[in-house]
């Protein structure tokens, strides 16, 4: 490596530009395979995920993630790289610990490396598992990743070793001999080396990295959000139902491609982390809403489906700190496609169906408080629609819970073990069953029914996110990540506030003298 460093220094000393990017060109490097975190992926995906993890952004000034990552790796060759990647510090106590001034949120990783030991000592000093300790832990991991990059050990490249592929870190891959050999045949030895690697990888690395590169570049989740917003606008603002249907169809096709692409890349059902469950529930709920709406000839279902799909796509596009789109290998216990695609899919679909009821219940509450114009008969009508989605939701939830029990029995030898995830899914089912049973009695009139349905979805959120982000214990907590607790707390606060605001709102009264609490009407749906 030392010999190579000298060679590099000599070559590049003649190319002093404003910011020399050497051979770090995205078009050259993006589609080279890299083995990272237990799987082979295009370098583009690795660099985007890594630079975002380190700095909170996928870009460094005007440079894209791949160029930034490549230049940071070149620091291992002692080249004068003027990139000062900064860690984003958000925890107030970590900011104090690092002596950051008010409003200053960024620290150079090169400085942090010098104080790595201090961060570690501060981390060790914390006895309690506080958010401060977690933030220090994250910072330590970020420093470790950064150090790995600048020492040339993070970037793993393929090399043919006999007939086998060996993955070697950049500092070993870029050997002096390889460089000299390339220099003899080309005036641009680096491009030559990477082109050769690409050609070799295409023949010998039998994975889907090339597809993944093209697939990731499409940014389908952003397109799906645009199309959903368009469909909603056609439906609600411009009142063009047919156009709304066309935009919805396009959204669904886009999301189907997005889901199928992930299935193809990961080789498993698309429901193994929070990002995927959110993605699948939005799509599933929209599909369900389309089917029910079509047969019931009721376009409100389309509104429910689109509105919920918009929420999930917003989360996928903007809550990237909480929901990581990264595809990672699964823990061994989940590696069973049959059970993944039956149990988890059913549960997530049921959450989607229950989310439809939540959307409609809140919309009715909103109209009751702010929009006016709804009679008690209308409310009864919309209660019927809510009731239909609840039927679907509870049946799928019960089925999903039973399938989960069968899977647990098949994998661990017990049908039921009071694990928090399974207990919370049963809590959700019980709460909805209590509401449905209460609807039969005179206990829950239509007015309260709508409020209860809106409130009951908080139990779904608790089962879905809360167990992982708040309880974080038990067999199912594979998806624990930070930031989720804050999101969930905000969701609960807003929902409760909305319920309080709309608690005493009145409708326009019955228009045909009917009693809004007549339970029989519900049975007829």
């Amino acid at each position, binding site marked *: 490596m030392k010999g190579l460093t000298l060679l590099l220094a000599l070559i590049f000393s003649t190319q002093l530009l404003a910011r020399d990017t050497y051979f770090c060109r995205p078009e050259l490097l993006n589609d080279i395979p890299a*083995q*990272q*975190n*237990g799987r082979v992926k295009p370098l583009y995906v690795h660099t985007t995920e890594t630079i975002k993890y380190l700095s909170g952004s996928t870009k460094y000034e005007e440079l894209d993630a791949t160029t930034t990552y490549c230049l940071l790796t070149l620091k291992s060759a002692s080249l004068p790289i003027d990139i000062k990647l900064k860690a984003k510090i958000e925890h107030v106590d970590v900011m104090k610990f690092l002596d950051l001034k008010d409003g200053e949120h960024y620290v150079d990783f090169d400085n942090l490396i010098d104080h790595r030991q201090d961060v570690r*000592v501060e981390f*060790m000093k914390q006895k309690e598992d506080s958010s401060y300790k977690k933030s220090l832990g994250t910072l330590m991991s970020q420093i470790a990743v950064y150090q790995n990059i600048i020492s040339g050990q993070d970037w793993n490249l393929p090399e043919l070793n006999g007939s086998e592929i060996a*993955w070697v870190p950049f500092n070993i891959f870029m050997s002096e001999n390889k460089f000299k050999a390339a220099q003899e045949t080309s005036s641009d030895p680096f491009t030559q080396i990477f082109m050769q690697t690409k050609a070799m990888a295409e023949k010998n690395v039998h994975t889907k990295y090339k597809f993944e590169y093209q697939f990731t570049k499409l940014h389908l989740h952003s397109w799906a959000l645009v199309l959903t917003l368009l469909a909603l606008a056609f439906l609600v603002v411009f*009142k*063009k*139902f047919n156009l709304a249907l066309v935009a919805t169809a396009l959204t669904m096709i886009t999301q189907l491609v997005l889901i199928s692409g992930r299935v193809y890349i990961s080789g498993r059902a698309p429901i193994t982390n929070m990002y995927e469950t959110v993605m699948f529930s939005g799509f599933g709920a929209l599909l369900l809403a389309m089917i*029910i709406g079509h047969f*019931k*000839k009721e376009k409100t279902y389309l*509104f429910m489906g689109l509105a919920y799909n918009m929420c999930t796509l917003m989360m996928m596009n903007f809550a990237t700190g909480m929901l990581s789109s990264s595809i990672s*290998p699964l823990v*061994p216990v989940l*590696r*069973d496609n049959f*059970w993944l695609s039956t149990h988890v899919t059913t549960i997530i679909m049921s959450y989607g169906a229950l989310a439809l009821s939540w959307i409609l219940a809140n919309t*009715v509450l909103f109209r009751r408080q702010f929009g006016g114009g*709804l*009679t008690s*008969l*209308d409310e*009864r*009508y*919309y209660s*019927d629609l809510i009731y239909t989605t609840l039927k679907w939701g*509870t*049946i799928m939830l*019960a089925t999903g819970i*039973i399938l989960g*029990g*069968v899977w647990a029995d*098949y*994998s*661990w*030898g*017990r*049908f039921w073990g009071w694990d*928090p995830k399974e*207990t*919370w899914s*049963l*809590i959700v089912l*019980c709460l909805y*069953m*209590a509401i449905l*049973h*209460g609807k*039969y*009695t005179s*206990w829950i009139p239509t007015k309260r029914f709508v409020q209860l349905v809106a409130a009951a979805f908080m139990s779904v959120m608790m089962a879905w996110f809360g167990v992982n982000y708040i*309880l*974080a*214990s*038990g067999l199912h907590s594979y998806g624990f990540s930070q930031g989720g607790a804050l999101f969930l707390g905000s969701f609960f606060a807003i929902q409760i506030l909305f319920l309080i605001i709309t608690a005493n709102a009145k409708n326009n009264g019955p228009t045909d003298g009917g009693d809004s609490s007549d339970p029989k*009407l519900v049975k*007829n*749906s």
Partner: protein
Amino acid sequence: MTQKWAQHYQKAEDFLGSLKFAVIIILCFTSFMVAGTFVESYYGTEFAGRLIYKTWPFMTIQGLMFLSILFAAFRRLPPKKRLYGFYTIHSGLIIIGIGSIATYIAGIDGSIFLPPNTPNREITLSDDIFRMQMPDSGRVIIKKLPNSAFASVLDVSHEDLKLLDYYPYADKEFRWADSEETYPPEQSVHSGRYLIANPNVTQDFTLSLHPEAQEFESSLTMGLLTVHYLPESLAPCFAKSPASKVVLWDSRNNSCFTPEDRKASVQTSKTGNRFFVIKDGPRLLSFFPEVSPWPLDDKFQTVQNSPIRAFGQKLFEERPNLFLFGKSTSYFDKNDQKWVSQNLEEGKPIDLPWMGFELTLLEHQTQKVPTYVPVPVLPIQKNGQLIHGTDRALLVQIQNKKYWVTNNRPIALMIDGKRAQLYVTKETLTLPFEFVLTKFKMDKDPGTNNPASYESFVRLFSDKGPTDYHVYMNNPLKYDGFTFYQASYSQDNNGNYSSTLSANVDPGRAIKYFGSLMLIFGAIWHYQLNFSKKTQKKKTELIGESA
């Protein structure tokens, strides 16, 4: 009379089968579960089971739910066509309940630990037991311990044995106890608590020479540093910093001296070892201090029980070694190339020459015995493992003497001259066949240390001879009514893997599956998931009319 009973029954049926009762009982059940998940989050899975899920109030609620479901169906008899789905749902739930009861009563849920190439046929179950074994007579006494969440007073007697208190979750608390025996003044029985700290690490430790201090040693290793706890009587000789770098200890009068004190010259043998000779009464003792603490006699035989032992300081100069003599300390300072001795005062730190460490004497006791006494605590869990309350402790009384037995520390006693071993452990079940782990395979995700799969290759020995099986995640082994699942694994210091299989017998399985099917089909039937046209009319569009 019969009519009166019929009226009572009708009232009970109406009450238990009413929708309001159903809603109340569902909400009670839900509240318990919500509490259970939070309790589990803080205090661990087992504690939640002991406090909520496996207690009679929760079982009662489940029983009432069972009755509610049953009577709700009874109330709607004789059968009506429109309620066929409803009957199926409720029958399904009742069948699931019956299956669960069958599992609860007749099911087995345990685990079997398989070290490499070591046969095992014992399944560990979940119930705690006390076991006393008397190997001489072959007697075994087993008493079941309560499945409570908190400390309980037991009233169990068996001949001379009494079980007094049981703590299902306990932490060890340090205490100084009075010595049970008296010891001659020349015997060193002192103990000390010390604190060693630098800005990164703080650790307190207790060392003891007391024969009754069973849980404390006289030496300890902390990373590269080794701490030796020696009799106080050796301190003056270390303080002398003898040129010979040898200190001798006479255990008969608990005193020390140096070769210089006896005017013995230290010489070097042909093989390069230092040696010297001293006179002990009529005997001549030759010491090779860098080879052995024991001397050689006139016939060059090792005197293993010699009251005089040599201590070669040179052996302890290369690596960090700290010598503690109760209220003083000695160590070799590599920077100054000399032995340093310092006195210790309680609470006053002194500097050590390694990584900025400071040493503080916290407490020095000449006669008292350091002990750990179990105290009941609430358990705390972290990442699925308990970090507090890991001990289960039982106070037993045998012949008017009390002993703490914990799951981590069984005790051995002599009762009327016969050996007895006392354990707090888990109930076990002996299988009619035997397992051996022949191979354990763990695949990792490429380029990482994350396990991708773990697989046990086991050989099962039964009456029919040995058979090989391959057990891995989602591929259990079914044999003789038992099902064995890959549960976990561990690795010893030599890199050998041990495997743990969970072992399970569930007589309610088929019943629960049948009930589940009925429940799902009943629900679909009941809600008639057809797409019939809506029967209601609306006046207002919620989201506006289409164009």
